[in-house]
């Protein structure tokens, strides 16, 4: 659909747009209040940070889903999956003490890990099953 065409906004669209607006405002206020010079003042970094935080949230949700599904025990036999689990699902003290540049590096890593995970899952033997799910296709569209 061309960007200029009208479409029927659903409640989901409205919620997503409202969430984006409020998240953008919160990110701006946080950046201003902590005085993070590399974040404050730049619309590019602010919108990028919002996107990265969404990627981190999506990655955590995806990992939790897989972990709690019947495939969880199988997935955990994979070392890479266990690494992701350790990195993103286990609460870490470091997250609270990260500097803003460390936080950016961490979030960019999360975005890369999410893209790799989506590629692996999509190409694997169960890829057909994953792609039948709308949520999975949405993530693929968003990050691949």
């Amino acid at each position: 659909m061309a960007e200029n065409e009208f479409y029927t906004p659903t409640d989901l669209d409205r919620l997503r747009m409202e969430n984006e607006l409020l998240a953008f405002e919160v990110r701006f206020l946080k950046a201003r209040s902590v005085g993070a010079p590399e974040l404050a003042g730049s619309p590019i970094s602010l919108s990028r940070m919002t996107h990265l935080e969404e990627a981190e949230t999506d990655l955590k949700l995806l990992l939790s889903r897989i972990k709690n599904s019947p495939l969880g025990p199988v997935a955990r036999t994979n070392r890479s999956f266990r690494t992701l689990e350790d990195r993103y699902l286990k609460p870490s003290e470091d997250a609270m003490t990260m500097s803003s540049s460390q936080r950016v590096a961490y979030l960019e890593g999360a975005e890369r890990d999410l893209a790799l995970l989506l590629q692996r899952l999509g190409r694997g033997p169960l890829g057909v099953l994953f792609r039948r799910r709308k949520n999975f296709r949405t993530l693929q569209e968003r990050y691949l």
Partner: protein
Amino acid sequence: MMPTQRTEHPVYYAGRFSDDVADVGLPGNHNILSDWDVLPPQLSAALERASVLVVLDVFSFPFESLTGDLQDVPLVLLLPAGSDAGLLTSVFGLAAFARLGFFDRVAVGDAGVWAELRRRYGWVERQRIEVEDDRPEHAAAEISAALEAESAPLTRSLEGDYEADRYWTERGDALAGLAPDRAICSVNHGLRFNKAMHRVQASVLSPQFAAARGTQAEEVSFDVLEVGAGVGRWAAGFDLARTRFTGVDISAGMVEAASANFPECRFDRLVEASILPYGDESFDLAFSVTVMHHNPTPTKLALISEMWRVTRPGGRLMFLEDFVSGEWSTTSTVYPMSVLKFVELLVEATAGQVVLEHVESVRYPHDGFTRGGLLSVSKLGVAKTW
């Protein structure tokens, strides 16, 4: 949630003259209040469905009680006869006149008094209701007739495919004469709705206007451009003695209405689509209020780029727009665009030569969710001329 239309009607506060005013037999649905009806517990209920509050007895009305939602009720003040502007200012200046804005009116017979008060408070000529007889019972009939004449239905539905330039040109020209007192996109909602919207928008914009002026010396004129100025209501948000306010609009009718409202300001018609008829770096501030979201992406891009061009380095660009679209968007004239998409567009249009100064979400009183947002950026660069 679509803003709902409430059945509203004028309310007349007649105070000591309530019996006299009741005897006149004002036409239409209305309420007349005496001085007992405006005690704090009653006032809120009495004004709940007021489309406008006509204060015929200004001496006894408790203006300080108009707080919360009640401050959105448009006011019409009948000034007492036989008083000069100095006396009226000293008695009603802080209590009443200072709270009058673009959507309020003053009923006064004496042209000299009106001219002096208008100059002091920056009111526009349209805000005057000229009454021949200052006595409350007679003035009430004249005010009622004036309000009745302005309350004709203004609904104009969208016909055929929406094409922004044509639609807003035609709509502006058609409505300029009928409703030179309302925001064009809220023209069907009545004055109270318009005033409420304006109050919320002003609460967000006014501090940013002041911040844009910043530390600029008072004797240096502040050059402001509003894109999509409509009837020019935002000119009232500036001290026009120290500001050169310019508005540009696509509708010739709106330019005419705005010029009549603010003769000391300049209003131009946007003749060539999306090209602002001004030189590079002409303004300290360029802003738009609920304009961009009515335009498709290429037009938004062109307008932002033009606003950036005409703003001086170090100057501000501000956008108060809707970044959330509700269900009604399918039948309205809004092109939905999220704030992040808009920021991407802003960066593209300005080649990233901007710094984000302020972000603020805006929730309107009639909405169940947050849909508006203000983005303020400053322009990077070195001035071409000094």
